């Protein structure tokens, strides 16, 4: 029988079982790295550095995981905080979106398919809408879970998801009805 995330966390807490923690990393590395790749706008090296930082922080602070939320939600919160702190350090957190949006709206970018267009359109969204879309629409978090991860009011999350989704639909309108 496969152990649940809660079982593995208990093993880490009681026995400091690093193999159990390794299993948690293996289970969640793809979603955490995927989230950070989107947040960092596909800067793979930075995303992987932040992903490592996320899991190391998770290990150091695993006693603060209360089990009220899913382990993945708790990880997303750490990942988002790592990203935000790094962005602040780089002084890119505010004001970068519009600038980068202009740079990325290069008419020579090739569009090999709907998936590519969708991910490209996603990367063009402002950070607050992109984060909400990534958590709620791509990773299946509820609005209230995303509000906890992003540390913003529930209503703001709902608005950001709605706006982001509408923008994506408009961008993809050329592909016909979605």
């Amino acid at each position, binding site marked *: 029988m496969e152990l649940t995330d809660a079982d593995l966390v208990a093993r880490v807490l009681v026995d400091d079982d690093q193999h159990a923690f*390794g299993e948690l990393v293996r289970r969640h*590395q793809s979603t955490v790295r*995927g989230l950070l790749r989107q947040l960092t706008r596909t800067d793979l090296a930075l995303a992987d550095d932040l992903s490592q930082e996320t899991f190391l922080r998770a290990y150091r602070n695993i006693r603060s995981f209360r089990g009220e939320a899913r382990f993945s939600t708790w990880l997303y919160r750490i990942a988002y905080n790592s990203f935000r702190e790094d962005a602040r350090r780089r002084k890119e957190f505010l004001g970068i979106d519009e600038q980068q949006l202009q740079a990325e709206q290069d008419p020579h970018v090739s569009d090999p398919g*709907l998936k590519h267009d*969708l991910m490209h359109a996603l990367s063009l969204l402002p950070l607050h809408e992109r984060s909400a*879309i990534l958590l709620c629409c791509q990773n*299946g978090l509820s609005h209230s879970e995303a509000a906890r991860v992003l540390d913003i009011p529930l209503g703001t999350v709902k608005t950001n998801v709605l706006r982001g989704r509408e923008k994506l639909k408009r961008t*993809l309108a050329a592909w016909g009805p979605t």
Partner: protein
Amino acid sequence: MNEMSQEDPVDRQLREAAPYIDDNGFTARVLQQLPAPRRTRRSLRGAILLAATLLASALAYLASDGGRFVVVAMERLSTLPALWLFALAFGSGILVMTVGVIAAFAKASELQS
């Protein structure tokens, strides 16, 4: 899950567009950076406790004229009626079990919190 009862097509496409990222040594790199397991610190604590116990026992043995008080206590016990001995053993068992149960509950509530 989301509060929306019907999945939006954009959500479905987003999920399908998200690729699975192969581990490619990522987990190993994370594990390499973890601090040393607490087990070493725990075994050091065990060794200190064992050494302190041995030292205290040796001191008690020397200070009590070769453990004479143990012989006296055993002699007294052997003169007790069988029922008293049974009650003493039973009471000791209950006491140890109670302490064990309390410790187990304390550990369980610590893990749950």
